[in-house]
């Protein structure tokens, strides 16, 4: 079977149980089981979503808040398992779902570089070779031995972005991470992402700014209440999306 899809999302549905029905203790669990009250209250964040991406594509996910964009990215990144359907990913994923998610705030910036690298499955020696590049890109040379808890949000964003984009991952996932940091840093990030795209990295990009998506992506998925409203060339989707809102 000749199939060059690097990511194929196949009829994926994701169900969440709503927090009001959360059972936290054994006692509650038994009582509720006896009364057969165990969560009948469900919420489908994604509903039968399917799309395919080829290697080298840059896919933008657009949609309003709560349309299931982040859930979709988390499923592709392997953080969540879909309730129904399946996702096949061929290659290494560098997730940037939330900047600084992997940081331990009591450790220094340099210790966090190695910890974060390890979270992506990279060895200490491998990270040594990227170390200087990360320090340079994040412009944190003077603060490298300061615990991250003392950093500003912009500094954390810079460090996290620099770590996540080392090497050339097969797939880069960006969830609204470019909305932080100052103008100059955003530009730098765009440039870095552009370079990665040229090297053949596949990009998955979520943003509320349709301009950013148009600038980076060639394909787009428009999600609405967990359903695919439209999937196709970025320009066409963006045009209809604009007129809709």
């Amino acid at each position: 079977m000749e199939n060059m899809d690097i990511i194929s999302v196949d009829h994926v549905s994701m169900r969440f149980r709503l927090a009001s029905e959360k059972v936290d203790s054994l006692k509650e669990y038994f009582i509720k089981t006896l009364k057969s009250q165990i969560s009948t209250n469900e919420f489908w964040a994604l509903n039968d979503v399917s799309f395919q991406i080829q290697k080298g594509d840059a896919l933008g996910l657009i949609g309003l808040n709560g349309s299931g964009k982040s859930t979709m990215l988390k499923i592709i990144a392997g953080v969540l398992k879909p309730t129904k359907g399946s996702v096949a990913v061929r290659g290494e994923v560098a997730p940037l779902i939330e900047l600084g998610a992997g940081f331990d705030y009591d450790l220094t910036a340099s210790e966090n570089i190695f910890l974060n690298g390890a979270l992506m499955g990279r060895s200490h020696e491998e990270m040594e070779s990227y170390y200087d590049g990360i320090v340079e890109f994040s412009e944190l040379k003077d603060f490298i031995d300061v615990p991250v808890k003392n950093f500003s949000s912009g500094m954390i964003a810079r460090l996290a972005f620099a770590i996540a984009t080392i090497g050339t991952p097969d797939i880069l996932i960006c969830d609204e991470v470019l909305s932080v940091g100052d103008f100059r840093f955003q530009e730098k990030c765009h440039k870095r992402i552009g370079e990665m795209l040229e090297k053949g990295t596949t990009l998955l990009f979520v943003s509320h700014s349709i301009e950013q998506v148009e600038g980076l992506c060639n394909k787009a998925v428009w999600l609405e209440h967990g359903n695919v409203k439209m999937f196709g060339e970025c320009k066409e989707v963006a045009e209809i999306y604009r007129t809709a809102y």
Partner: protein
Amino acid sequence: MSTYIQNFIKFRPLLNELIMRDIKTKYRKSILGVFWTILNPLFMMVVLSVVFSNLFKFDIEYFPVYLLSGQLIFNFYNEATTSAMGAIIDNGPLIKKIYVPKYVFVLSRIFSSSINLLASFTALIFVMLAMRVELHYTVLLVPIPLFFIVFFSLGVGILLAAITVKFRDIMHLYSVFVTALMYLTPVIYPMSILPEWLEKIVLLNPITNILMMFRDVMMNNTVPSVSSILLAAVEVVVVMAAGLYVFYKRQDTFILDI
């Protein structure tokens, strides 16, 4: 199966970093730093042996060594399983955002406790030398009981970590359970003071068997019997299998319950 092994190799560095982090953050800003891992059990032993050699008189030669060896095994079990129990919940924010094999967090807690175990073991050797307790060749067999207690704790820890995510009550219940378990382990008292019916119960406790093995090689110049080794091996295998099975079955729902 091979994908599991590949995955494990990929995240080996993470295990190292997590263990390093546990140790670094624990002793950060303390002047003596890592020395506390040895000093702490030493001081504890001094306090307890002063209390117990004056309050209760047990007929045991080298009581401080007896007590310290009991504490070494039991405190490791307590520390390792209690910290492993919270491993998934404490790393919740991370598990929600990045894909990492979740057992790595449990493993890192058990292994950083194991480093403390080695430090306590060093302290025990110091005490034995200071008290001029004869060190026998059987001490070289000490990896056997230590191996058993580490993997027994790992089995219990991974099981607790998996079910605590759903049922938080276990956390509170477990500390009571461990206290009861301590009195059912001959940490402080000698087996000889027990009435027959109680001795049977104490012997049912898997930790008792491992602890007696440990004391045999450390103090009594006795090679552990084949039957006690087999018993410990079976107990470890059963606990590990149960832990891994429950953890494997539950791990995909962790993220929904954290």
